[in-house]
């Protein structure tokens, strides 16, 4: 009787094992989205989750190679920019079908661009193409040739198409019919998005096998980063695309083969002073913040090396200016990070009449130098950076008060009420081209954060930046553009309207079961070559 029971238990265990093995053999890649995707429409994607889905499902005409940072052909086999940078003509790949078998043609490109340029569609992707007033002309020249003419020249036009997922003009499935490696198969709100391999994906590997190799991708919607790390370490996830320094070190200490530091990224952390003339600040403080010497002195009093070493555990680098060293072409290599030099900072301050008396820095009228720095609450790195800056500034007699606010309150202060003195935030840079920073550097722009919406430039150096930014945007000669933008970087370095602090490294974690993963600094760091990724149990099948 006992032996009989033992046999039954053995059979049950074997059955369970077989079921588990079967479930695992489905070649499913798993990683996390940190919020609900707001849309599956590739033209409306602006949040991280929607952009992830757009990258995995959307077929594009041109892709920016995340390794070389050059434009490479995808659905367009060739393209030509003419008419002084206003027109781009695409020659399209033949025999391509959408995921629902609808054939792909020039009409779909025309339809997508028309939808994208709809004046009512206020999406960042669309705005990148809006260079001037007027309508966009689309000419379908043949089944596989299309010409798009913009009202004004657009610098770096071809690379902008990396963000445009082509939609079908005819498919009844609308935006759910895609040309990318995967298509959305299932979506459970708040839980997961399941992507399945696109059976009509046009790419094949060297041996003629259709890509992608991985059957499906399960994107779990998981806000809690601690849980995400735990799940990765338990083997329930295959990678984490972007990690904080602390989590990175935690993974490094547990399994060093998983942790990948791709080096310095495009993202920066910076602080700036409120220079808005109408802000409710006392006049003497407005005068401090408008002074170049004051800003330069603050910059020199901050130890950037310490910020990188202590706050980011060494996974960051002192920042130089608006362009990170990771941006190979556009970075101005003549510039160096501002050195930590409190003596020089005090000398600069003395030029403006500031004096250090009894450990307190005072201006000409005797006001003690004290200001508050706002940053977003819950971001432990910014909170720690603020604390270190507080200590550094105390060294030259400045009292810094740190105020953390939730994001909506902070945005209200820096964009509406201007009721703040200094702000510490980061810039997430998705685009290599300086044209994407037009709305930051033009003095008339809403995002010219230290003093937005100026009717005419408040300072000579801002007028100079306006001129240079417009000049770089109106020429197609990349050398000339580089020369203009180098000058912008030099002025920004000299005047420091933004005090650039550090550029964070691109950190990620990839399970050893994922093959062909080569994390890079550009987004999406880990899955940029999604159609080439292979899971451990697929390697045998691939070869």
């Amino acid at each position, binding site marked *: 009787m006992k032996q009989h029971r033992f046999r039954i238990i053995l059979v049950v265990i074997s059955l369970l094992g077989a079921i588990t093995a079967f479930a695992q053999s489905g070649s499913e890649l798993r990683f996390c989205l940190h919020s609900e995707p*707001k849309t599956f429409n590739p033209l409306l994607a602006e949040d991280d989750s929607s952009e992830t889905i757009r990258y995995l499902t959307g077929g594009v005409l041109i892709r920016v190679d995340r390794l070389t940072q050059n434009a490479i052909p995808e659905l367009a086999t060739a393209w030509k920019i003419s008419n002084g940078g206003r027109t781009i003509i695409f020659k399209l790949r033949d025999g391509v079908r959408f995921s629902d078998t609808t054939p792909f043609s020039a009409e779909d490109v025309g339809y997508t661009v028309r939808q994208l340029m709809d004046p009512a569609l206020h999406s*960042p992707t669309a705005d990148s193409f809006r260079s001037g007033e007027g309508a966009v002309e689309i000419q379908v020249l043949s089944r596989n040739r299309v010409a798009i003419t913009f009202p004004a020249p657009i610098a770096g036009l071809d690379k902008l198409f990396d963000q445009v997922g082509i939609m079908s003009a005819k498919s009844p499935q609308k935006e759910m019919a895609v040309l990318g490696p995967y298509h959305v198969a299932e979506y459970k709100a*708040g839980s997961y998005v399941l992507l399945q391999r696109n059976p009509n994906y046009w790419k094949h590997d060297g041996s003629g096998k259709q890509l992608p190799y991985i059957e499906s991708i399960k994107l779990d919607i998981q806000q809690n980063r601690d849980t995400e790390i735990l799940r990765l370490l338990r083997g329930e996830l295959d990678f984490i695309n972007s990690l904080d320094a602390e989590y990175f070190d935690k993974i490094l200490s547990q399994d060093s083969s998983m942790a990948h530091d791709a080096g310095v990224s495009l993202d920066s952390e910076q602080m700036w002073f409120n220079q808005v003339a109408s802000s409710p600040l006392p006049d003497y403080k407005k005068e401090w913040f408008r002074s170049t010497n004051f800003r330069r002195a603050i910059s020199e009093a901050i130890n950037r090396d310490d910020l990188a070493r202590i706050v980011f555990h060494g996974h960051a680098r002192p920042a130089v200016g608006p362009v990170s060293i990771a941006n190979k072409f556009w970075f101005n290599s003549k510039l160096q990070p501002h050195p930590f030099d409190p003596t020089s900072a005090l000398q600069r301050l003395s030029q403006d009449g500031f004096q250090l008396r009894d450990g307190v820095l005072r201006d000409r009228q005797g006001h003690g130098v004290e200001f508050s720095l706002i940053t977003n609450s819950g971001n432990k790195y910014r909170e720690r950076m603020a604390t270190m800056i507080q200590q550094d500034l105390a060294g030259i007699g400045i009292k810094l008060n740190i105020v953390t606010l939730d994001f909506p309150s902070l945005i209200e202060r820096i964009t509406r009420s201007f009721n703040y003195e200094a702000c510490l935030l980061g810039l997430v840079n998705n685009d290599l081209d300086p044209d994407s920073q037009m709305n930051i550097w033009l003095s008339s722009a809403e995002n010219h954060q230290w003093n937005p919406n100026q009717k005419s430039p408040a300072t000579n150096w801002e007028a100079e930046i306006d001129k240079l930014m417009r000049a770089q945007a109106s020429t197609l000669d990349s050398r000339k553009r580089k020369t203009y933008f180098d000058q912008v970087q030099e002025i920004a370095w000299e005047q420091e309207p933004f005090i650039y602090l550090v550029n964070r490294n691109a950190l990620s974690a990839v399970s050893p079961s994922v093959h062909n993963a080569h994390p890079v600094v550009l987004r999406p760091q880990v899955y940029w070559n999604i159609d080439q990724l292979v899971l451990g149990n697929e390697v045998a099948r691939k070869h």
Partner: protein
Amino acid sequence: MFRLGKHVARILLTVLLGGILGATLLRVAPGFGVDEEELDSRLNDQSIRALRQEQQTDTNVITFYFRYLGRMLHGDLGISRTLRRPVSELLRERLPETAKSVTLSLALGWALSFALVILALMSRSWSVDLFGSVISGFLLCLPAAVLSVLFVMSRAPARLVLALIVFPNVYRYVRNLLLRSASQPHVLMAQAKGLGNFRIMLWHILWPAAPQLLALGGVSVSLALTAAIPVEALCDLPGIGQLAWKAALGRDLYLLVNLTMVVTVITLLANSASNLLGEAFRPSAA
């Protein structure tokens, strides 16, 4: 019938007031009407202005509320600004998840409480009573967030966190009520006459305490619902608690007002039902 009508009218009035209070609180909260997207450097000035214009439509709370109520009568609960989806759709997806969690937590919390109290009463063992009191006291001291994190780290089913929040609150009241009921003279008399333990428990201890237990039932529903907000947010459970958390962070007026109303309706319905049932029990208990 009149009593039922009075209850319905009270619920309706409270829900309407709750809705407008929720809307007012959100309207005066710092950061109302701003959007993180505004900081996207790729957006041009026209788009930022359009985005701001869009946010300005609901600045007057009274206008917003009457327009909202008018649309609600036609079955339109508005569009969530943060998730860009109809609120009715979001509620339809998320309510069953929270209903599952709350029902499970109530069932488990009550069952555990009853089991421990009845065991202590029937066995007349001080050690069982002490065990129940220590466990419930310990759980009462643990914040919901800590419990959630512990469950996430130990891979335990997150829905059980709610049960552990309901249990200690229910246990204390159930214990006190049943102990008081058990010490009544007629119970002692029944025990002296040799009546069976089960019969004494059912008819002489539980039955007289039924109105108070039912009232506690109503309160425990609102307790579980309130606890669902941090627990779902921390454990990534896709219910209305998680939705409420996101709505509050994103200053999502339509979503938050609707959620306030839903939670108010459920709480009031549970309390009213327990009151009405309690009143029905009273005459026979007397």
